[in-house]
């Protein structure tokens, strides 16, 4: 168990170090996210009144779009430079690679969110710094990345890979997106916790089911 965890840590560490040297993935996600918010600002006429109910939707759309870019890139790099084969040759259980990559992707997505949220809060005076809201951001990102990492590993081996990831990923992660939007909206509008609870439960259930399912089938995705 201990060596399993340290192997996962090694995969995550490798991703973080590689990213730290170039910072190209994170900066691309970040700039893209800011652009999406900018576009929403004009497309939806986001003034102080309108954004009350729209904020959650705008934020999550931004997160999942930026997340898709990050996911695609994180796995495409492995494939293009032949690193995936190297990883697969490592004498560890294949699920280590899945968890390592997934946690790495989660960290990137959370980093983008950590920077976008204060910016958004600054621009629109939205009270995003509440424990509940941040918990939703975490749970939603986990579900999204759990499925996203699996599908991205699949998509990089496919001919039409650049266009395929969002097409495969969005319909599957719809429950996460709906539940995340509704529960973050609930926290932003100060709705009592009892009414938000079903959405939180749904998020947790989705995260559990799909992390386990992805863990179970990951071997088949990287099999040669």
């Amino acid at each position, binding site marked *: 168990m201990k060596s399993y965890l340290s192997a996962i840590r090694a995969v995550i560490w490798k991703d973080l170090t590689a990213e730290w040297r170039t910072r190209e993935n994170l900066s691309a996600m970040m700039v893209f996210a800011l652009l999406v918010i900018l576009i929403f600002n004009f497309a939806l006429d986001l003034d102080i009144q309108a954004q009350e109910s729209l904020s959650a939707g705008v934020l999550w759309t931004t997160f999942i779009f930026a997340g898709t870019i990050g996911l695609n890139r994180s796995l495409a790099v492995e494939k293009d430079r032949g690193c995936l084969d190297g990883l697969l040759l490592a004498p560890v259980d294949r699920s280590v690679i899945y968890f390592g990559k997934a946690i790495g992707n989660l960290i990137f997505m959370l980093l983008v969110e950590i920077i976008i949220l204060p910016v958004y809060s600054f621009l629109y005076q939205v009270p995003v710094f509440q424990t509940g809201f941040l918990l939703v951001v975490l749970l939603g990102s986990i579900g999204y990345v759990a499925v996203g990492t699996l599908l991205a590993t699949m998509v990089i081996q496919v001919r039409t890979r650049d266009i*395929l990831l969002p097409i495969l990923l969005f*319909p599957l992660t719809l429950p996460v997106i709906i539940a995340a939007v509704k529960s973050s909206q609930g926290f932003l509008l100060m709705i009592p916790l009892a009414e938000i609870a079903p*959405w939180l439960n749904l998020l947790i259930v989705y995260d559990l089911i799909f992390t386990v399912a992805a863990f179970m089938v990951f071997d*088949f995705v990287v099999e040669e």
Partner: protein
Amino acid sequence: MTKKPRLLSILDGLSGLMILVAVGLVFFYAPVEVMTGQVQKVFYFHVATAWVGMLGFLVAATAGVVYLHKGDPTWDITGHGAVEISLIFFLTAIILGSIWARPIWNTWWTWEPRLTTAAIVELIYAAYLLLRQGVDDPERRARFSAIYAIFGFFSVPLTFISIRLLRTIHPVVIGSAEAASQGGFNMDSPMKITFFFSLAAFSVFFADLLWHRIRLGKLRAEVEILRINAYSKGE
């Protein structure tokens, strides 16, 4: 190529006959519903096609699990065939539902849980076909689409629940008190007979189509092998 099995020919005839009888029952046997009138007759085929749609997706997910276990290409062909057939049936169900909804709900479409889920299901399985198209290696294509079919099947109930938490006006015909206000109704015996017969007819029809589709898939694989052999001989 093996000859067309006798049982398949019998199934062809049976499914054609059952569909005909179902049409007959719908138009001449089932009574006209009091509240909503003639348009209610759409319901028999609407539910039957939607049921076949769901059945196909269940078959695809099951075939996916079996394929990952056994690695037999027949299961891949089965899954692929089931998704193709169900995509069409589900689309038919949506269109039939629209025809019913126009006079009853006064709109062709509404963002209601069942309708929204149906739309998402169509998109998931359209994505399934796009995924298949993108992979050239048959073995890898089979693995990937098996996984996607399983994941799609898991996510659909969660999508349904999540939208259900949001809103609903779709009538629950069987066992619901407030259904009448949304265009629902109680079925009497001739209606029930028509309803269950339509379900059975479409299920048989589905089995028949799927069988044909599996034979077609195997035939296609054979042609592929013949072609490769011919190429290698030519060189």
